[in-house]
């Protein structure tokens, strides 16, 4: 791509750095996978406690959710990485990576699951209770399977955001994919090649995840809609 400034696009350059980029991508996938799995579990568990209106626990969960939803993920990452050591808790880049993503995604998913559980028609649970099911059993057999399906599209959206936001770790110099690319750019100035390469990788993976999410949503769709 020659232009006025004399910049020449060099595709071989990407090939030369595939090894480094691959290592970075593996780190991106590692912190994303732990963060996504954790955000799913935390969201479902705390969302259920919240929907069941367990006293005290529900209020504590609300505080967690509101704090993490109403502050920037990047500032949360900085707090974990730069401020916690002051309190004697030193966390490495990898730990801050998956932990910050888990806490952030978890907070959004608590809301998604809670809303899903609360959207389940009251009559279903009442019928279940009338048949003699204890409260928890009614939740497990009725509210959970229906509510989780209602919550599914918003939950998968957040999980995909967790993957995209793993790139925020560039701010604490954890060498995931974006930080790896920025470091290569810093010594070689091959800006176009690098950002084109990782841009395609991120877009491709997001696209694949969206396809997967739609497939899962289709598989678990409530027959006849809701």
């Amino acid at each position, binding site marked *: 791509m020659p232009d006025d400034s004399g*910049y020449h696009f060099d595709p071989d350059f990407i090939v030369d750095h595939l090894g480094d980029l691959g290592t970075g991508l593996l780190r991106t996938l590692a912190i994303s996978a732990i963060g996504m799995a954790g955000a799913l579990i935390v969201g479902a568990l705390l969302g259920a406690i919240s929907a069941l209106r367990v006293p005290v626990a529900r209020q504590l969960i609300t505080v967690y959710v509101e704090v993490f*939803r109403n502050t920037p993920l990047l500032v949360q990452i900085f707090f974990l990485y730069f401020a916690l050591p002051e309190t004697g808790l030193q966390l490495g880049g990898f730990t801050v990576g998956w932990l910050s993503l888990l806490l952030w995604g978890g907070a959004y998913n608590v809301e998604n699951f809670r809303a899903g559980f609360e959207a389940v028609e009251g009559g279903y649970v009442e019928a279940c209770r009338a048949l003699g099911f204890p409260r928890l059993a009614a939740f497990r057999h009725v509210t959970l399977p229906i509510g989780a399906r209602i919550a599914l599209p918003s939950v998968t959206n957040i999980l995909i955001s967790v993957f995209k936001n793993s*790139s925020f770790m560039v701010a604490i110099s954890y060498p995931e994919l*974006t930080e790896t690319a920025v470091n290569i750019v810093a010594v070689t100035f091959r800006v176009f090649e690098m950002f084109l390469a990782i841009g395609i990788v*991120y877009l491709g993976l*997001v696209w694949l995840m969206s396809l997967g999410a739609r497939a899962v949503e289709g598989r678990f769709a409530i027959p006849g809609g809701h």
Partner: protein
Amino acid sequence: MPAWVGPVADYLAGGLRETALLALVSIAASLLVGILLGALLTLPSKPVRAVVRAYVEIWRGLPIIIILFLIFFVLPIIGVRVNTFIAAAIGLSLWGSANVAEVVRGAVQSVPRGQAEAAAALGFSWTGRMRHVLLPQAARRALPPLIGLVVNLTQQTSLAAVIGLVDILEASQRSIERLTLSGGSTHAVPILGAVLAVFFVICLPLTMLSRWYERRLH
């Protein structure tokens, strides 16, 4: 109050001004461009929709930090000189407008089909149908998610720190570094805690407003 607090607070206030200005510019541009693109996505013309769809998919699909790096590093290479503020504003607006467009498209298409057909039968042009029939109804449905996007954009301004804008987050980092160099103690907990608190105080009322409005719609 310890002596370090005053100067740090002043410095953070300067950063907050940058943050607020960046948020306002990005929100305004995102809404303006996004509503227009969202309306275009409901046009019958396939080529128009394909072009807008590509824009939306690219800028929604990329991580925001990659968009900021793209703008910040790539624009100078093609001969466009921009400072960090403009680069951040462009990057956030690309991301924001793509997301607004998707919200607006969803809201317009959720208005029952018969409404547009009735307006067409009465002789309204596309712009007339949009302005007088579809957009006013879509606006009510789009409002809660749009407020959510405003909160999101406000929070994402902190990413401008990564490309070097002295916003509130970068100001806090520099304060922490300066305190470490001069006194040895970093005071990172109260300083970053204050940054979290500032965002929380701005975003929580908006989040609550969005939730309240959403509940009122149902």
